[in-house]
């Protein structure tokens, strides 16, 4: 079952002579549906809430440590615009911000190189993918597209699959798909799995991020089970929310999805990424989620390969906090470029 892959890799940071062995992050694959891995699992809500709420009191980062953590938060942001009034101009502005999320003098004061800090990705609607791809050409910043009748996911399956293929053809590197919530309510794991497998195949080389819409699923037990099905269907990431549900990426939901990822890794050897999205607006929210990842999963899940924050307004608050770290003065939003 376990498939650890050790790949020799040049250690560029060192003398150039050292060869470091590390476990490469091999892409998750489709595996058969195994309901026995999750059907007996029940999540205790009050314990999850207690753990989630005590984390903020148990852990904190201050001063340069906090600055470093906030920079890491920027690196894992999927900078997102998903609105009816999105236009090519709006998307280009977002991409420009993704390339240079921090004001140049702040970058300099931190002792970093221009372009060193960039967001994890840019996330748009399928019809905006080509604009984003063009705007980010040469940067290596991936373009993510939502698809499959986002946010409700209730358009017919052929159209949902066609939307994935369209976005991939347009150059999207990552596809944020939504699940059909009714399958979860019915406990129809086979149907949920079958759809996701077809979506995963439609994604081809693009990475699939499965949005569970946890605010609709309501119970943490549903969240855990749906997470496991999504991972069995080959998802590269599991993601909490579309941002459109009434409740978004709460800490208890994030906790349970992180634990599902941990369990899936233990059972299969595959590493699946996690993306909380929706409602993460303050620097403190981002730090809370980084703390949660650090406490519940190995170190690699703090990096953009395996962790993203879906957000739009968050970046501004992080910029303000970083400026405060540098100057000791509380900053204002208008001092930082808008996305």
């Amino acid at each position: 079952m376990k498939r650890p892959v050790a790949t020799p890799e040049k250690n560029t940071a060192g003398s150039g002579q050292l060869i470091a062995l590390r476990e490469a992050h091999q892409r998750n694959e489709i595996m058969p549906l195994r309901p026995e891995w999750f059907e007996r699992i029940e999540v205790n809500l009050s314990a999850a809430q207690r753990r989630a709420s005590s984390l903020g009191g148990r852990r904190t980062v201050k001063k340069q440590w906090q600055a470093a953590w906030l920079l890491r938060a920027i690196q894992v942001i999927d900078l997102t615009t998903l609105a009816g009034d999105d236009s090519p101009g709006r998307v280009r502005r977002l991409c420009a911000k993704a390339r240079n999320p921090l004001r140049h003098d702040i970058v300099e004061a931190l002792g970093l190189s221009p372009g060193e800090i960039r967001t994890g990705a840019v996330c748009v609607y399928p019809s905006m993918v080509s604009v984003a791809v063009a705007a980010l050409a040469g940067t290596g910043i991936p373009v993510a597209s939502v698809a499959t009748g986002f946010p409700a996911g209730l358009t017919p399956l052929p159209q949902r699959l066609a939307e994935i293929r369209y976005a991939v053809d347009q150059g999207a590197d990552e596809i944020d798909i939504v699940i059909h919530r009714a399958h979860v309510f019915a406990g129809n794991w086979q149907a949920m799995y079958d759809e996701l497998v077809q979506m995963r195949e439609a994604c081809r080389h693009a990475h699939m991020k499965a949005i569970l819409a946890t605010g609709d699923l309501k119970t943490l037990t549903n969240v855990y089970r749906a997470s496991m099905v999504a991972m069995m269907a080959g998802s590269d990431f599991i993601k909490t929310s579309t941002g459109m549900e009434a409740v978004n990426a709460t800490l208890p939901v994030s906790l349970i999805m992180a634990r599902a990822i941990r369990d899936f890794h233990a059972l299969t050897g595959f590493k699946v990424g996690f993306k909380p999205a929706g409602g993460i607006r303050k620097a403190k929210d981002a730090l809370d989620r980084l703390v949660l990842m650090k406490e519940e999963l190995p170190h690699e899940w703090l990096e953009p390969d395996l962790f993203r924050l879906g957000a739009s307004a968050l970046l501004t608050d992080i910029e303000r906090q970083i400026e405060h770290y540098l100057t000791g003065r509380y900053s204002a939003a208008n001092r930082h470029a808008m996305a």
Partner: protein
Amino acid sequence: MNDIRSLMKSMEYGPAPEDAAPVKAWLERHNRRIGHFIGGKFVFAAKSKSFACNNPATGEKLAEISLGTPSDVDAAVAAATKAFASWSKLSGNARARHLYALARQVQKHSRLLAVLETMDNGKPIRESRDIDIPLVARHFYHHAGWAELLESELPGQVPVGVCGQIIPWNFPLLMLAWKVAPALAAGCTVVLKPAEYTPLSAMAFAEICNEAGLPAGVFNIVNGDGSTGAAMVAHDGFAKIAFTGSTEVGRIIRKATAGKAKKLSLELGGKSPFIVHSEADLDAAVEGVVDAIWFNQGEVCCAGSRALVQEGIADRFHDLLKARMEKLRMGDPLDKAIDIGAVVDPVQIENIEARVREGVASGAQIWQPSWAQAAPLKGCFYPPTLFTGVEPASRLAQEEVFGPVIASMTFRTPGEAVELANNTRYGLAASIWSQSLDVAFDTARRLKAGVVWINSTNLFDAAAGFGGYRESGFGREGGREGMMEYLVPAWSKKARALPPSSPLPEPLPQGTSLGGGLDRTMKNYIGGAQARPDSGYSYPVLDAKGRLVSEAGFGNRKDIRNAVEAAHAESHWAGMTGHGRAQVLYFLAENLEARAADFEARLKRLCGVSDAAARREVETSVARIMHYAAWADKYDGAVRAPAANMLSLALNEPFEVLAISAPDEAPLLSLVSLVLPAIAVGNRVVVTPSQRWPLLAGDLYQVLDTSDVPGGVVNFVTGPRDALAKDIAKHDDIACHWYFGTAEGSASVELESAGNLKPTWVNNGKARDWYSPIEGQGREFLFHAVRIKTIWTPFGV
């Protein structure tokens, strides 16, 4: 390398220290001397009569503490006694205002108190800031309410008097609050002895009392060590002693206060089980372990220190637990991101190390996180430690470590989990993890523990009673039941002493005629059958004029033993519904009434009372049985809601086997008045009826036999009351003992009960009007007939 870049790579937490400067300034302001607080003034001992108090995390000396002498205790008791006169007369509303002011002042100085507590005790600032101090404020708020409501909610109750309170070092200010708030609310005044390791926050609290305008002498502190505590326990000026600490010291206090007519509450040690059933949410349970045994470095009396894990999930559970332990952070308690701080004193580290060495030697497997092995911290730190493969026979499974060490063992079935959990001398707390309501509640009901947390652990609230079963002590802190520890019935303060009782005649032939006819010698009544006394001796039963009427068995300790075994063997009664028991008791009343004439004749013949008096005693006895038949399905307990998604159930549970030493006064009525409340709530009783006139019990068991009271529920052993009471008090399979006789007998019962620390209820040689509905029946009796188990159950989906 750029600092920020390397931090981004490591993603370390970095330090996050809480500022100690305000506390240092506070200590300097007091010249680093901590005195006593007597009559509203700080009193300092000479330097030669002081001892040092250190910060366990750094070894730094924090202050010089005055060592209290017996004369300091005298002075404090005098101040408290003087203040009692006016404090106890204040209206409930006036006392509520004072308690409310204390609560507010605690909140206003919350950070100073938290930092002080952390520096003195070594506990993480997160815990003192987020748990200890908020609970302290909550306790004063809650009890401000009890002061206000006392008169209407607990009518007929008056403050017991001046209280001596001795508290431990693990939660210094919280334990102060648990002791002081209910005492003050009740109208008592207090002399408190803080633990010698942790006297600082009490001093700060004394300042708060002055700041809040608490009248001088209502709250007093005498600092010191064990000798100071001993002087307090020995002091005649206290009407009540409250102690939290070790079972060993609790036992000493029980003996030292025996026969002193003091109320006593003891909150002692534990080896609390942490039960993980197969259908538990394992991640939730792992996090529960963190809160159970790595809260406050495991220095918690109710710490879940004994994990019982279902066999099928044990490996997975231990793997998850070990992974979690790797993430724990131990270090500077003032760092806001620390999970485990410093142990209170080097002596405690030695104790923990000794117990761990024994555990290793016993063959259990020890596991500590890699970070603990890689870089052991110097000083008073001990890493989180897991022992697996622990057997019940190991000391690690039986005795308190009082450190961050959990002993894990496995069970096969839920029934075996309960057996293992109850296989202990203690009975303080328990934690149950299961997603099944059926399994969780079945386990909770069957555990012998005062506090049971379902899918949670170490939750506390001022409205929920806290306290133990068995050798974890008696009395409750918090809630209505906690208030009862500081109150006594108003009439009891004026109760007169009983006249000395005539000595029992020798169990030898008297040489006088029994007057012919068929012999009717009263035998013991054990397990529903008559049994000859083991001794083979009988003693003469004389009437009021000293004429021989009959003979009764001269019972001894073996008869008591047999009666206890019969009582334990009866397993149906406690499991019956209250309604079922009520029906039996109504039937009993009916049958007693049907034989009223016989009982009246017996009373007249034996006690020499008038027709009217005999009729009154029998009629009142019938009414009393009906009174408790009425109660049988109503004394269930209470429900509290400490949080929106939480219920805490205060269940009134029977003691199983409760013993009663009944008095000679009103021999039928007093017997009925004592036996009935005990059995109405589900106890089985072993009773020594009036030694002078045991024949009433002989008549009564015939009525019991005809009333469907199952054999073994009520057992009678006749004979010398005080000798048998001593045998009862020394019997460790009796969970509670009521004694109504002489002052000497009361003292002996209290002294001998120290063996298994059974709660006792004695009359100290005082009379009680058995005919009075206030003195002779009601809630006072029911309260003593149960032990309260508080079951916490959070819920949510």
